């Protein structure tokens, strides 16, 4: 079965070609289009499960050593030999399953959501293309093919964000996403160049086998450059700015691309390259710090937003920060674990938001919502599941993955108490704003206009069924990775272990120095036989609960408090509400200065200097001509004299 792994990405590509060419050309019926689009995805999902099981049948050590499935040579030039080839190992197949599975459900959901859109066929073509690219990314067996997927998903993101291109905002957002991603890709490219320059190959297996030949500085540079790529794709500081704007796209797209799959590819990439990352402690620290910083920073912005999708967007950025924190402290499988659970619950949250919008005729401002839970019960309950999951309430998937990250942040040799602290605070903030969102949207009074109110309705089954499935996954998804301390076996880690290695040294029993520093910081009071993991778990749950309670207090019990608080801390509020003015700063620093430089180069330099000097030479010739033509009097005898003079001169030479 493993031989047929290429079918997994190929099927969506077929769907794309069918819908994109035949579907659009012949204006096929929506049913045909949606059937084709969904069934290729379903098949793709089915094949990834088959491959997964065939992989499972192998002994654990053999799982990571399955030979790559090479289709054909791609770019071959001198020492460079790249192929179109797929790598089958636990990591890639987990990713493939997550991607194709979530995509499949979101495709089904989209059939309902996009039903009345005139661009229905185009939408599904793009969506299929996206899945193809994403699967290429996760299944690639070399950096270059991964980069194909990497840029390919960026393209689809661009196309889908700008799906409603008639309005300026989506078009702008799409362009912004693409360009910002390109900045990241720039880093990725350079990282690849560096790898190739030093190792002479881009094949994952060879690179990782030869990685020990690299000197520490090079490794650090490579990993940092690749991380630049990851910050772009996965919306980390400083390149996160495109993701909130990306919410201009259709909601299922936000769900699929900008929450569940594409944005996590940075995490996947680092996990895939964990061999070289492990060799570069500095880079690891950088990744962890950026991850933690993004987690808390984005969470802070999420708190004050009113646009339901933007809250989710910032939440996504923040959660991605967690994943980076995880891989940064060396807990690669924890990162992937969170990636998976996040795909379930964040995908679900977005779909839920879509369902809300569907009910409210496209309303996005949560101030105009409220009290929806009675009218849209399925949406509400599934949304609540996801919220609980993301808040890290025990029993839900998010709890397991998030807690593991926090624990690793604290205990891993790459970890630090400070990282844990940031993570924990961010978790509290997450719980707060997610519940704020849920409360304001679904509870309380309905603040929608009368016109809208009349039409509030639950979404059709084609949309709610995916919601339910994802809700189930959000709840149970975590049980594949129950930590040892809670008596689980952590199958997830075991499965990934052949690729990513076991848990880092020291996991489960934090090193003494860390505990000491924790003690010094006053976070813990006694050192003893207490299981630190349990304590930290409890602490983070408590923090989450505190967050939830504040949300409950502020938005259900005393709804007027937030306004007063906003009045009180006006400056702070304005700054945070305006997202720290980062967009404006970027605009001023990069966009408008680039435009100014461009204009300057064009008007002043190109026209004024370069072209002018060219024309100056021509002008000089003209001037000479103007002077010299005075000789041309038009009198024949003048010319005859000239001829004679010439003859005289020539004869001088002849008789010399």
């Amino acid at each position: 079965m493993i031989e047929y792994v290429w079918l997994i990405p190929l099927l969506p590509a077929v769907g794309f070609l069918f819908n994109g060419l035949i579907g659009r050309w012949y204006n096929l019926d929506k049913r045909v289009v949606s059937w084709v689009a969904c069934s290729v995805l379903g098949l793709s999902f089915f094949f990834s499960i088959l491959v997964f099981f065939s992989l499972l049948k192998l002994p654990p050590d053999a799982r990571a050593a399955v030979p790559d499935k090479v289709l054909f040579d791609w770019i071959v030039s001198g020492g460079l030999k790249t192929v179109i080839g797929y790598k089958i190992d636990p990591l890639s197949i987990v990713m493939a399953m997550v991607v194709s599975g979530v995509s499949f459900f979101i495709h089904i959901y989209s059939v309902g959501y996009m039903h009345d859109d005139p661009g229905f066929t185009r939408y599904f073509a793009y969506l299929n293309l996206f899945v193809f690219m994403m699967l290429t990314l996760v299944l690639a067996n070399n950096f270059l093919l991964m980069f194909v997927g990497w840029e390919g998903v960026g393209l689809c993101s661009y196309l889908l964000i700008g799906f409603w291109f008639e309005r300026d905002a989506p078009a702008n957002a799409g362009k912004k996403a693409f360009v910002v991603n390109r900045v990241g890709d720039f880093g990725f490219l350079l990282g690849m160049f560096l790898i190739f320059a030093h190792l002479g190959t881009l094949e994952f297996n060879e690179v990782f086998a030869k990685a020990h030949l690299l000197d520490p500085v090079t490794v650090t540079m490579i990993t940092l450059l690749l991380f630049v790529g990851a910050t772009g794709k996965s919306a980390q500081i400083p390149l996160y700015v495109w993701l909130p704007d990306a919410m201009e796209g259709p909601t299922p797209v936000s769900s699929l691309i900008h929450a569940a799959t594409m944005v996590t590819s940075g995490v996947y990439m680092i996990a895939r390259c964990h061999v070289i990352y492990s060799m570069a402690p500095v880079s690891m620290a950088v990744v962890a710090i950026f991850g933690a910083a993004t987690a808390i920073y984005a969470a802070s912005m999420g708190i004050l937003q009113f646009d339901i999708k933007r809250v989710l967007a910032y939440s996504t950025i923040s959660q991605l920060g967690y994943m980076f924190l995880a891989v940064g402290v060396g807990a690669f499988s924890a990162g992937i674990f969170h990636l998976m659970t996040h795909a379930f619950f964040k995908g679900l949250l977005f779909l839920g938001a879509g369902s809300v919008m569907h009910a409210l005729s496209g309303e996005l401002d949560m101030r105009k919502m409220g009290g929806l839970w009675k009218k849209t019960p399925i949406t509400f309950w599934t949304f609540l599941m996801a919220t609980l999951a993301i808040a890290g309430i025990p029993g839900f998937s998010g709890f397991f993955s998030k807690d593991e990250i926090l624990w690793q942040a604290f205990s891993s040799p790459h970890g630090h108490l400070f990282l844990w602290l940031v993570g924990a605070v961010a978790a509290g903030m997450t719980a707060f704003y997610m519940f704020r969102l849920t409360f304001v949207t679904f509870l309380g009074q309905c603040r929608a206009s009368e016109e809208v109110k009349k039409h509030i309705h639950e979404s059709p089954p084609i949309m709610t069924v995916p919601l339910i499935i994802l809700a189930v996954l959000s709840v149970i998804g975590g049980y594949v990775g129950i930590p040892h301390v809670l008596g689980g076996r952590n199958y997830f880690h075991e499965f990934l272990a052949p690729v990513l290695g076991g848990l880092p040294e020291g996991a489960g029993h934090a090193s003494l120095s860390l505990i000491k520093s924790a003690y010094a910081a006053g976070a813990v009071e006694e050192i003893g036989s207490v299981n630190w993991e349990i304590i930290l778990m409890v602490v983070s749950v408590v923090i989450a609960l505190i967050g939830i309670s504040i949300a409950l207090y502020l938005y259900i019990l005393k709804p007027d408090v937030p306004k007063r608080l906003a009045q009180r801390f006006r400056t702070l509020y304005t700054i945070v509400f305006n997202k720290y003015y980062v967009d404006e700063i970027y605009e001023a620093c990069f966009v408008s200065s680039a435009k100014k430089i461009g204009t300057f180069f064009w008007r002043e330099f190109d026209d004024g200097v370069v072209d002018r000097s060219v024309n100056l030479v021509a002008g000089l010739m003209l001037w000479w001509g103007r002077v010299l033509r005075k000789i041309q009097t038009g009198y024949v005898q003048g010319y005859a004299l000239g001829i004679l003079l010439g003859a005289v001169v020539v004869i001088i030479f002849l008789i010399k």
Partner: protein
Amino acid sequence: MNQLGFPILTTITFLPLAGAILLLFVPREREELLKWVTLIISLVEFVISLPLFIYFDEGKAGMQFVEKVPWIKEWGVTYYMGVDGISLLLILLTTFLTVLCILSSWRAVEKSVKEYMISFLFLETGMIGAFVALDLILFYIFWEVMLIPMYLIIGVWGGPRRIYAAIKFFLYTMAGSVLMLVAIIALYFLHGKATGVYTFDLLKLYQVSLPIKTQYIMFAAFALAFAIKVPMFPFHTWLPDAHVEAPTAGSVILAGILLKLGTYGFIRFAIPLFPAAAFKAIPVISVLALIGIIYGALVSMMQDDLKKLVAFSSVSHLGFVMLGMFAFNVQGVQGSIYQMLNHGVSTGALFLIVGMIYERRHTRLIADFGGLSRVMPIFATFFMIVALSSIALPGTNGFVGEFLILLGTFKANPVYGVFGATGVILAAAYMLWMFQRVMFGDIKHPENRGLKDLNFREIVTLVPIIIMIFWMGIFPKFFFKKMDLSVQHFLYDVKARYEAAVTAPEGGGFLVKGVKGSKVKLLIKE
């Protein structure tokens, strides 16, 4: 004589000329007939050029399909043609694009159809001849011959400032090539003095190794001629003018083929003839190329005229070509050659596309468009694919070339590589911004509401390009294997001779004994 047993190179070089003569006998009133005849000739030409690709032996590095006949014996001028892996693909690009250009001129050309078609076929002869010529005089003739029809195409069928643009194009190029002619003649005498054989045979002239100072002067002369044609950074200002004024097909050929002759000139003439100077010139050329990449992109971003935007993007793209070529490693040079093809295909397509909306709206100002995606979905799809190819999205042809160039450059000199890679970001910025302003948003101008989508002929024009974009992007090996050995041989040869030149005593060569730098002037004078 060659693999095919008949003079295929002469055939494909002069078939268009024969076609042009044939056109003389078609009455000028029968415009449809004229167009069809031209189209068929160019199609036949394309078909005839295919065996070149098929029968080209990729196991050989040297020239193939060689034809060598003495021409002017007294001066050592031969009618010497041959193809290697470097020129092979460019010839195919020429025949390929010419067909599309003829198709695209179907409605665009309204006056003097006959003369237009004749000019075009004549131009094709010039371009192919320049690619296959292996004798410097023969090359020079074709090189100059190309200018005339192009001059006419811009000057007669161009836009409002066509005369200015045509003359600027002509004189600027001419100024460079005259210097090259001087250098050619000087080279001829230097070689003759050194070996006693007076010849313009390129492959024989490769063998001469000149003192380094002489090489500098000669390289500068050649490089200037080609740099103007490419065009490299400070010599680029004729390009936007020429493009803006030229008719669509003229722009396509100008961008697609004529500019490539500049880069091809470097790789075929300037570098192998003067390897030591070329190696010493790496910093200069690379920095100019980098400036071209970034500068071209930034200026392109701010353009309000579509054609000018594409023209400046050409400056940027050709900066990549030059950068890769002067990396002097396999990846860089192969990428560079590949990028020449890519640029021909995708920028050619961009000009076709701009031409298509120009035909409908008679304006090229970006501000006059907006929201075209709604009324012209097929057009939007084509435009999108071509734009993506132009910004080197993986999976399209542009990526393969740009990636290899940057990889090669990075290997040779990481700093150049880093700066070059910024072009990737800027390319996305200007291309997508332009695309957004033209295709997305609301329809602001009511004239745009009634625009017709592409007709059958236009689709037929663009589909081959789209196929090529993906074919070259996904199966590049198909093309690479043809040029692989030639490129490796080129690099080996150039490097060996460079090392011989720098290690030789007194910087002199092994063939030109007793000719030192100081005597050069005298020799040239004689």
